[in-house]
Every structure is written in structure tokens, then in C-alpha cells.
């Protein structure tokens, strides 16, 4: 999923950020123009058959997975880089789980982690790109995999449960996502840890079981023969088996006695050989009858073994003859191994789509994504294992599987050349694609000098090839991956990577011009925080901070208090008023709504945090007139108002529960009525862009968000240290 889809599809309906980036605004405005653009593109494609080729993308489902995987192996092996993109069933499990400006680095990770744990990936785009020197162009092989977490083997049921965010599902529907195909035909998968667990369970089961475990029935099989019909059936079968058994022994003894059976039972009981032993193949019995037969064999025949083995299509029920006790043991062992192997095969078969991930990992190719931290987190969670609890552990583990990852969003924001081409407009995928690769995006042939710098990309799907392919299926993972790859190739060219010089392919993973961008990802785009995958640290000397500058302010997490459960409809301005009456008019730097049930309050001094928490507690304990008349009583009214330090916010975010409203969430997580003041960890002050707040006050946001800026103009004079001046415009707008 590219960033624009993330914004457009899921963020917009509930814009609630303190500062919505200017970019978001433009993305949205631009998206409209894009839709018209894409429709005109489609129109163009239809009308001019010559210029743009329009064969379909390679869609992969259960039925063609094996062959597609085999082809993909070759493409990936030869590729210079592989672009990937995912479509998910949702992004945030609750409105307050969206990215906020006020999210510290660790909390940003917790939010991504929650998203990757709860939602399912339903489409996976893989697009290997290979430079062909003799053609002087890239060849791309876009693949669009439909994946679905279908449960193929027994195990932990909870991993086959996923969340759907209604807006995201609608978003997918808007782009004609085929849910039927996904659910019916989607390729299933098993993560590495799931596979390990399943194999472990298998081993435990076969080790644990005693030798009599050959039967596929559980031990509680001593069905008592109650019904007359059962008794009669058992008796008849006992005779039949005895007859067959005696017949076998008779043969051994040289007698030429043949086993006579009536026609109908011949169909049900057929003599075959199983592992060099004579056996009776039981077909056409009900499971109840088979259980009775099993009982008969167990109780009446010492040298016969009832076995259930896997046949080609379904399992086969057999009665096998073993001529001695040692042979019987041997047979048991063989059966056991057989069952074990069969179960193992089943587990291997269930790996499914993970083969693609294993392929990307083992080839150690350069992976290209667009704003891809969430995508990578999904890949980790779905195909490797549970996400570690901290960002650092997570990325270091990611590096083990994918040593080279590059993000086009980072690249575009960091490179001045690209910025110039994009004219400082948004770096959403489709926008970047349209501006950087016009020849592919719109099929327009440019000529002369301008064309020279454009990297040619030829698309190959099965046996069809085209130099200006455009399926136009935006927000389809395969096409998005293709766009990402094209943008990357073009950006590389702008950065000075010259593909044409090299006789063979370029080693992009180690290319000097790309080194400063490789393995950097936006942990949160809203905050512009970049994580270095090699170290797991936040990139401080950010090369990509160009989009994030102007007025910066500091968010002091240790000065921040979380307040929730206050009377509904209490506005931020009113809360602020109450606090100012108690702690002084300059005590509050800002108040910020997480949702309608919770606010962040940042005090001007750290002491005020504990002062407030202590005061709150005393007020709640006493019931005298003073506490009733206290200015804070307006906030504490109702007796359900809670407050806690910033660290508690982290605790709440790390919970697996997701209630829609923050107050409900906090209660569910079990934060006590008055959360204890945990010692806040002093975090490096974070610089946040407040400039864009001017753009935030579009109609959506105005309903949802209330911003009360820090400083009233006269007071501002007294607090020159405060850097929140840029918040003033926001307030001015609010008060309109």
C-alpha cells in the first residue's frame, strides 16, 4: 500500500492529528486530480491501441501459484532489485491508534506493531526489476499475489483471526478489489515460527505416543456396543476378518484355500499388500462402522493391526497382518513414521506464499518499498514470527532476513533533484510516479533531451512485453509495486546512478550513491521520524528532514499528562481554563485531544505533572466544600476522570486490546482509578513541525480536533523561552 492510499483510504475519515501535514492536504487535493488523470489515462489506453499496451498484470492465486513461484525464482535471481507492496484489511484498530504528533519514537513503533498484528494482508505485489544492457532498459515482472490467512493445518486458532477496518474495506472496494477471489482462491501461508511450532507439536505427539498409537483414533475409543445393530455388525465383521485371517494362515500352510466373499463385501474388503504385508483395504464404511471394526480388530486379533494411512485423495483404512510380535512392532514403527512424514508434508505444503518471502530473503536482493515500514512489519509478522516488543529488536531482526531495504519515500524527500522535479509537492506514490515517470504513467512519448534522462522500463507478463505498459489499477499491490520500482529506478538515475555505463547489471545494494539512503525507513511519516535499520536508532542527523522544518517545537514528554474519562462535551478550552486557574495562566503549553474522551496536557514545568496528580488525588479523596468548589472539580466531575503520566500512554498502546474510545481502552487495560505516577523517562526533546497546523483546520478536523495553543499573546511576552509561537495561528483560526 503506498502512502497515498494510507492517507487517503484510512486517515482522512478521522483526521484528528494535532498537526496534519501540509502534505496530507495536498495529497488529498491531488488525489482528486489523479483520479481524473487516471481515468483519462484509461481512456487514452483504449482509444490509442498503438502506444500503450494493456495486457493484464500477472495475478497469482492458489491455482497458478506453483508455476508462478517457479518463474518468479528465476526473475528474482536475475533481478537488480525487487519492489514490493501490500494491501491490508486496515491500518488502525482504533481512532486513537492513529499516528499523532505527540507519539514518541517507541510509541510510533507500538502503533505499527498493533496494526501489523491485527490486520491481514490480502494482496502482495512483487515486482523484480532487471537491467538489460543490450536493450538499455529495465525489465519488470509485476506479480499480484492474492493471499488469505486460510487455516490449512491445526494449530493456534487466533492467528487465523484478523481485523477489518470498515473504511479500509470500503477503500479496497472502491478500487474494485476482488474479495471473492481473495477468500476463495487466495494463497495461504505459514510463518517461520508457525511452521516451527507445528513441527514441534508433531514431534511431541509422535514421541509421546506409545507404540499402540498407530491408530488414528484417539484413545477414548472404547465405544460400548449398545445398539443391536452394532453388535450384529461387529459380529459379522469379526467373522469376515477371521475368515480372511484364517485364509492367510491357510495359504502359508500350503493349503489352496481361497477366501470367498460375497460380491458386495468384496467391494468393501479388498486384499492388498501394505509394506510387504497382506492387508485388507476397508472402503465404503461409515466412520462409526470403522470405529466398530477397529474395536473388533483390537479385541479379537492379536496379529492384525488396524491402520489409517494417507492415500492419494483421502485416507485409507487398513487391517494389516503382522506375523510376529517383532514384526508387529516394526509395522507400528513404519506406520508411525509414515504418519509423521505425512503430517510433515502437510505442514510443508501449508507454507504457501511464504516461499516468496523466503526467496526474497535468501537471494538477499535489494527490496524497494514506498513508505514501507508498515509493509515490512506485516511481512515480519505474517511470514517470520511475532514482532519483538521494541523497534530496535525488530529492525535488527528484519536486517537478518532483508539486509538491503530502500524506501522511495525517503529517497524522494532526501534528494534535491527529485524534490525539484516533484516541485515540492507530495511524495505520494502515484503522484511521484506521474511526475518522475511520465512516459510510463501516461504513455506520452517525450522526445529529445528530456527523454534521455528517463529510465526505460519494459514490462513482461508471461510472454507479452511492452515498453509503456499501464494497467492503471491503482491500489492494486502488484501495480503499486511496479510504480514503486519505476520511481526508484528513475530516482537512482537522478541521483547519478548511471545504468548505461555498466556492461552488466549494477550492484545497487552497494552503490556509493545510494549508501546514505539504504536501510532507512520512516517509522512514522507524520512525525518524519526515520529509523536506521542497521542500528535500530532514530536517525537524528536526518538527511530527509527537508520536508520537515520551519518552526520547530519541543514536545517534552515528561511534562505531559494524559487525562481521560472527563465529562463528555468538555472542550479543550474549558479544560485549559480550569487548569490555568489552579496552576497559573502560563502553566499549560498545550492541550491536545486524542479523541473525544482523552486529552494530552503539556505543562510548562515538569514539577506541575506530579503537582497535578497529587492534587487530583487529594481532591478526589476529600469531600469537603473546598474540593467541590475547586476549579478542577469541573474536570473531575462524574468521578471517572483519570490522569496519568506519559509512560502510562505507552502501556495502554502496548496492550492488544483495542477499544474504539481511549477512555474505554484505558479501563480495559486495567489502569487503576488513579494511575500511579511512574517515573517518566526523560526522552530527548523531539522536534515537531507545528507550521503545518495552519492547514489542519479543514472541515473534517474542525469537528474532531480542538486545539488550544499554548500561549495567550500577552503572556507570550513573559515566556520568551517558549517556542510554541507557531501555534498561535491555529488558535486564531479556531476562535473564528
Amino acid at each position, binding site marked *: 500500500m503506498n502512502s497515498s492510499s494510507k492517507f487517503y483510504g484510512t486517515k482522512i*475519515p*478521522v483526521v484528528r492529528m494535532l498537526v496534519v501535514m501540509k502534505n496530507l492536504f495536498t495529497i488529498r487535493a491531488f488525489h482528486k486530480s489523479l483520479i481524473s488523470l487516471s481515468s483519462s489515462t*484509461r481512456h487514452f*489506453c*483504449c482509444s490509442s491501441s498503438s502506444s500503450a499496451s*494493456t495486457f*493484464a498484470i500477472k*495475478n497469482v492465486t492458489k491455482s497458478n501459484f506453483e508455476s508462478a513461484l517457479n518463474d518468479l525464482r528465476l526473475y528474482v535471481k536475475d533481478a537488480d532489485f525487487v519492489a514490493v507492496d501490500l494491501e491490508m*484489511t*486496515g491500518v488502525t*484498530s*482504533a*481512532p486513537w491508534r492513529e499516528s499523532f504528533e505527540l507519539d514518541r519514537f517507541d510509541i510510533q513503533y507500538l502503533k505499527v506493531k498493533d496494526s501489523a498484528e491485527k490486520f*491481514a494482508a490480502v494482496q502482495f505485489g512483487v515486482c523484480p526489476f532487471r537491467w538489460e544492457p543490450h536493450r538499455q532498459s529495465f525489465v519488470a515482472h509485476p506479480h499480484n499475489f492474492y493471499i*488469505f*490467512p*486460510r*487455516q490449512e493445518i491445526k494449530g*493456534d*486458532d*487466533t492467528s*487465523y*483471526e*484478523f*481485523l*477489518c*477496518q*470498515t*473504511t479500509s*474495506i*470500503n477503500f479496497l*472496494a472502491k478500487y*474494485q478489489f*476482488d*474479495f*471473492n*477471489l481473495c*477468500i*476463495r482462491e487466495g494463497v495461504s501461508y505459514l510463518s517461520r515460527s508457525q511452521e516451527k511450532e507445528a513441527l514441534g507439536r508433531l514431534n*511431541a*505427539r509422535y514421541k*509421546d505416543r506409545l507404540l499402540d498409537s498407530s491408530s488414528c483414533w*484417539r*484413545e*477414548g475409543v472404547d465405544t460400548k456396543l449398545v445398539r443391536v445393530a452394532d453388535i450384529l455388525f461387529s459380529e459379522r465383521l469379526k467373522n469376515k476378518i477371521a475368515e480372511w485371517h484364517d485364509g492367510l494362515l491357510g495359504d502359508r500352510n500350503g493349503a489352496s484355500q481361497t477366501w470367498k466373499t460375497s460380491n458386495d463385501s468384496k467391494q468393501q474388503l479388498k486384499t492388498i499388500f501394505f509394506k510387504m504385508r497382506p492387508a485388507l483395504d476397508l472402503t465404503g464404511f461409515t466412520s462409526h462402522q470403522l470405529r466398530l471394526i477397529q474395536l473388533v480388530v483390537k479385541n479379537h486379533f492379536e496379529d492384525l493391526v488396524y491402520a489409517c494411512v494417507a492415500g492419494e485423495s483421502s485416507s485409507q483404512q487398513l487391517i494389516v497382518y503382522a506375523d510376529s510380535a517383532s514384526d508387529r512392532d516394526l509395522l507400528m514403527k513404519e506406520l508411525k513414521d509414515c504418519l509423521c512424514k505425512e503430517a510433515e508434508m502437510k505442514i510443508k505444503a501449508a507454507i504457501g506464499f511464504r516461499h516468496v518471502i523466503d526467496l526474497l530473503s535468501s537471494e538477499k536482493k535489494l527490496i524497494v518499498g514506498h513508505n514501507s515500514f508498515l509493509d515490512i512489519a506485516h511481512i515480519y509478522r505474517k511470514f517470520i514470527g511475532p514482532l519483538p516488543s521494541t523497534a530496535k529488536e525488530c529492525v535488527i531482526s528484519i536486517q537478518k532476513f532483508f539486509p538491503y531495504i530502500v524506501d522511495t519515500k525517503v529517497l524522494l524527500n532526501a534528494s534535491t533533484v527529485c524534490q525539484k522535479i516533484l516541485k515540492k509537492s507530495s511524495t505520494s506514490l502515484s503522484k511521484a510516479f506521474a511526475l518522475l515517470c511520465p512516459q510510463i504513467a501516461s504513455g506520452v512519448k517525450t522526445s529529445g533531451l528530456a527523454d534521455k534522462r528517463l529510465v526505460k522500463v519494459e514490462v513482461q507478463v508471461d510472454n507479452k512485453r511492452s515498453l509503456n505498459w499501464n*494497467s*492503471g*489499477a491503482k491500489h492494486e499491490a502488484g501495480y503499486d509495486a511496479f510504480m514503486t520500482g519505476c520511481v526508484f529506478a528513475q530516482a537512482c538515475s537522478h541521483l547519478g546512478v548511471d545504468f548505461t555505463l555498466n556492461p552488466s547489471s549494477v550492484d545497487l545494494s552497494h552503490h556509493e550513491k545510494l549508501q546514505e539512503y539504504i536501510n532507512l525507513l520512516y517509522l512514522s511519516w507524520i512525525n518524519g521520524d526515520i529509523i536506521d535499520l542497521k542500528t535500530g536508532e532514530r536517525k537524528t542527523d536526518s538527511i530527509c528532514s527537508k520536508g520537515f522544518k520551519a518552526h520547530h517545537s519541543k514536545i517534552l514528554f515528561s511534562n505531559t499528562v494524559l487525562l481521560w474519562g472527563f465529562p463528555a462535551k468538555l472542550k479543550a478550552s474549558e479544560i485549559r481554563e480550569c487548569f490555568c486557574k489552579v496552576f497559573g495562566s502560563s502553566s499549560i503549553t498545550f492541550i491536545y485531544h486524542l479523541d473525544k474522551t482523552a486529552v494530552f496536557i503539556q505543562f510548562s514545568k515538569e514539577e506541575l505533572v506530579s503537582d497535578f496528580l497529587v492534587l487530583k488525588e487529594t481532591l478526589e479523596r476529600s469531600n469537603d466544600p473546598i474540593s467541590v468548589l475547586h476549579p478542577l472539580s469541573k474536570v473531575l466531575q462524574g468521578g471517572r476522570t483519570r490522569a496519568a503520566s506519559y509512560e502510562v500512554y505507552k502501556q495502554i498502546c502496548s496492550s492488544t486490546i*483495542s477499544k*474504539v474510545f481511549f477512555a474505554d481502552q484505558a479501563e*480495559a487495560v486495567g489502569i487503576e482509578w488513579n494511575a500511579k505516577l511512574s517515573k517518566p523517562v526523560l526522552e530527548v526533546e523531539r522536534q515537531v513541525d507545528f507550521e503545518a497546523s495552519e492547514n489542519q483546520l479543514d*472541515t473534517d478536523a*474542525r*469537528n474532531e480536533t480542538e486545539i488550544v495553543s499554548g500561549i495567550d499573546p500577552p503572556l507570550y511576552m513573559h515566556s520568551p523561552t517558549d517556542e510554541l509561537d507557531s501555534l498561535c495561528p491555529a488558535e486564531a483560526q479556531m476562535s473564528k
Partner: protein
Amino acid sequence: MLLQRRLLCTQVPKRSIHPTHHQNSNLNNKKWAIKQVTKSNFAETLEEIKTHIFNSDFIAVSLQKTGAFSSPWQKVLPFDTAEVAYLKAKYAAERFQVLQFAVCPFSVKSSKIIAHPYNFHLFPRDELKMGMPSYSFFCQSSYLTAMAQEGFDFNACIYDGISYLSRAQELAAKDRTGNPLPRSYMKPSQSPTVYSVADSMFVDRIKSRIKIWKRTCQDSEKKTEDDLISTLRKIVSGGEVFGSRPSLSIDICSERQVQLILETLQEFTDLVPLLVPAKVGGSQAIRVVLTSSKEDRNVFEKELQLMEEEHNMQVRGFREVVDLISTSQKPVVAHNAINEFAFIHSKFIAPLPSTVDEFRSSLCSVFSHIVDVNHLMREIGPLNKVNNLPAAILYLKRRFTRPLHMEIPQHIDGDEVRVHGRDVLRISELFAKLCLILRIVPESPEADYSTSSSTLECYANVFNPCFISSSDLLDDDVNISTEKTRRISVANLVFLWGFRGMMSARKLKSLLKGSHEVFSGEIDVRLADRNCAIVVFWAPGFAERFLKVMNSGGTNCEPIKDMISEGLRAACYRTYKRVCELSIWEPSLADALEKALEEASDLPEANSEEELPAICWDNDELTNLDDL
């Protein structure tokens, strides 16, 4: 062309859903005439089903959800009390989504069932852009896969499913958006207001403005005027048009002004006030519409009402059907009612309350009679094992040979096979059969339903998961011995976990038997999930004794001591209940119990004098737990 390609993949494979594949019911002989309803044919269907609901005697409902329970112990188990079962149903209803809601109004006349089955496809689309009805919902891939196998069209459901708002959500929506225009037709309050000087000035100003505007409107009606001039006149007087009638917007800045204007307007019989809502709540203007006569005013008011209804339908969506069922006061028949109605309550009425009693009373205020066919089946002793609709129908057919003919009068166009929602027909059929057997419904066609309602009364609104038959509810410690079901107080139940590896119930039982004398009496051991067992001490007091031994760390009892050192833990039923109350929905029951014990150690011991309910212990029912 892209569209085309994608749509091509979309086509539902129809081969697998031929009705002959479904056995066990006489329904398979005829076409499944279940009307499938989506957004496109909802409005017309609503009128249709309205008449059927009011003309039928019963209404069967059946829901298709995106999931049910996340791990084996979280489904309603036979040893659950009503409270525990409700908490489990609540948890599921809050997480999962309803995608299909089948409704079948039906009547039973002598040996005929007349049924009108409908299957509504729902999707919680956020029509009002307010994060309602549902921000997100869980899906279980096994449920979706099963639906896909039946040929369910997810694309149609998501693109064209009917949305809805619950009653509580509708209130909240009104609160948040203010009254959308057509709905806000209103009558001024009767109490006269005391005017201040400013008020009367305001009123005078408004009055004169309205008079001038009225005059211009009436003038222009008389004269035929140039278009340009009439437009100009309109601009000058601030007049607009509302439909075909002239209207005037008056901006307001307080609720006080609203009141004043409404009072002023009472003088004018031909003016109808409408409130224009502001975006942030409250109103921003009053629109005054001029009607030409008293008749015209009535016509206009009717029009407004219609518009309001239309808007309401858009807001309420599918809930209209639920409301229809509710107002009809007809008995509602369901299978596993507690699960179904937990969903219905949470999606269409209000968030679920925290206790089963509140739930029951809230539900009864909406649906007066709810009948669970599951409960009725238990009235006929031997059936109590049958928890699956086709099997139950087959069973009844064999035992009670009275023929019952299903008649579905509605005609469905097209030859598409419509199997979705067929459970609702099964429920109707089963209910009709059971009614005949239990003599709930009069057999003569003349007698009407009201005479039988008292008979039905005693079967209605029972939510006990262990299905204690109504007559036995009074007795406390009686053994009901239909087949192997016995009644036992939950005080005699102990949960055990932490035994080594995977163990069968039988093995565990024999292990326990040899360990301590408390096990020498009659006990039953069953697995509640993979690594947690439930032990029933049939002799009273033994459970308590055992727990004491466990708490003492197995003093004087080496085998128990050994097992404890290997990790054996035990908890009483109250801990299990607490697990559900605190929503500790861990995948494994053992983990959940462990957590509940930890939490409990922080709290003072709850009043242990609390009366413990009894459950029915059915040996057969639990055996299949071994297969988990």
C-alpha cells in the same frame, strides 16, 4: 477494461451450490425461494416484508457472522451458567460482524407452514461518515472460507450490502450532526416566553422582515414578471425556494433566538419553520417556508414527514426490519438464541450491558417473545444432543411422522440458486414440528394464535445455556435423569491445569484416582480445552476438600505434592466466572485462569456466601470436548 478484468474474476462459481447437495430436509426438493436483499432492492422489500411480518404468526431469524469464538473454551460450553454464557456471547458479538441476516415471517396452519424467507446482506458502511456503525470488526478465516464455499458473494456484500445504525447510534448521530434539514420540522413549545427589550426588538425586526418578504412573494404570484426582475426581487428579499414553495432563511446566533422566531411565526398560519443544522451542532438558521393555503400547509407537512421517513430509512438502514419485528410483537424464533440476540442487541439496539439480567430485560423491552428451538428440542428428551439443524429435522421426521408441508408463496425471478439464509427455513420448519409435538400451536386452522400464546409463554425468553427445562427451574438439587444428564451445583466443579504435556481425560482421571482419597468417590474428568480439565465431584464437599489440599501444597499427600511441583494448579468455578467477567480472553483457558487468580490475590475475597447456581452435567455432551 481494467474494470472488466476484475469483474471477470468476480463471478461467483455456481456449480458447488446446487440444492441437491444439501440433504436432510424436504426443502431440498424445491427451489430455495429465499429473496436475497441488498441495498438496491431494500426499499421495495421493506414494504413487502412489512405486510408479511404483520400477517404472520411467527418470525424466524438467523444470522451469518464473520466469526464466533476465538478458542475452544470461549464458546458456550455445557457447564456454563447463564451469566458465563452471556459474557461469552457478548464478547463474540462485540468483536464479530453480521454479514447476512435472514428473516422469515411464517404461519403454521394445520399441516402447512407458510413462509416468506428473506436474506438481507449487510455491511457496516459508514454512510454518515462518523465512524458508525462499526469502526472495525474481526473475521475468522474459517468462517469466511465456509461462506465462500457456499457461494457467498463477498463483493456484492461489501459493495452493495445494507448498512444500519443501532438505536443508540442513531441517537448519538442526531446529537452530533444536529437535525438534518428535512427532519427538523418542528412545533414551537407552548409556554409563552417573557420578552426582554432586546427580545422584543428582535421579534419586531423579524416580524417586519417576514411581512415584507411575504408581501413580495404574494405580489409576484399575482403579476407575471420578468425572470430577471423576479430573481432580483428574490435576492433583495433574501428569499429562496424550498421545493416549489418560496422560503426565507433567517440566520440565528442562539437557541434563544430560535425560540423567539418560532413563537413569532405562530401568528402566521401559512408559514412552516424548518431548522437548518449547523455543522458543529445546534442550528445556524431557520428556514421559513410559505404555503399558499391551509390545505397546502397540510400537504407540505405531509411531504416533510415523508422526507423525514426517507432520511430515517437511510440512517437506520436494515434496522428498519428489526424495528418492524419489534413493533409487530410477534414471537421471534431462533436457534441458539443467546448468541443470536447478543449480536442483534449490540448491532441494532445498543451496546451490550454487563450482566445477563440487564441484557434480558433490555431485550424483552424490544422483543416480547423469543423462542429458542434449541430449548424446545430439549423438551423432547432424546433430542437434547442434537445441536445441528438438519440433523434435528431428520430426527423429528423419523420419530414423528406427521407430514408438514412447507409452502413458500413468494416468487423469485431469475434462475439463480438462492441458498443463502436457508437456516431460517430450517428453523421455521423445526419450530413448526416441535410446536405440533409439544402442542403449542393450535392444530385447527380456525383457532388463532392468541389462544396458544400462553402455552408458548413458558418456552419464551429462556437463555439458560444448560437448558434446564422450565418446570425444573424451581427445584434446586434434583437429578434430572433424562438419558445421562444430571444436575450439579457448580460448587462441585474444579478446573485443573498444568499437568504434563497433552493428556487425555481418561489418563488424567486414572492419574487423579490414585493420588488422593477425595478422588475415590465418583468423579468425572473432561477436558475444557487442550490443557485445562474440569473435574466433577459428585459427592458434595469433596471439591472443597480437594482445593484445600491443593492450597496447602499437597501436604500429607505425596502424589499431589509431586503433581503440584510439576505445575498442577486448580481453581474453583468462581475463578472461571471471574475470567469471563474481567474479559481475560486468553487463547488458553489455563492462562486465563492463572491471570484471574493473580488478579484475585490483589482483591479481598469476594463474598463467598454468594449462592452458587447449578448446571446440567451431560456426560455425552462433553465427550466431544476431547476432540478439541
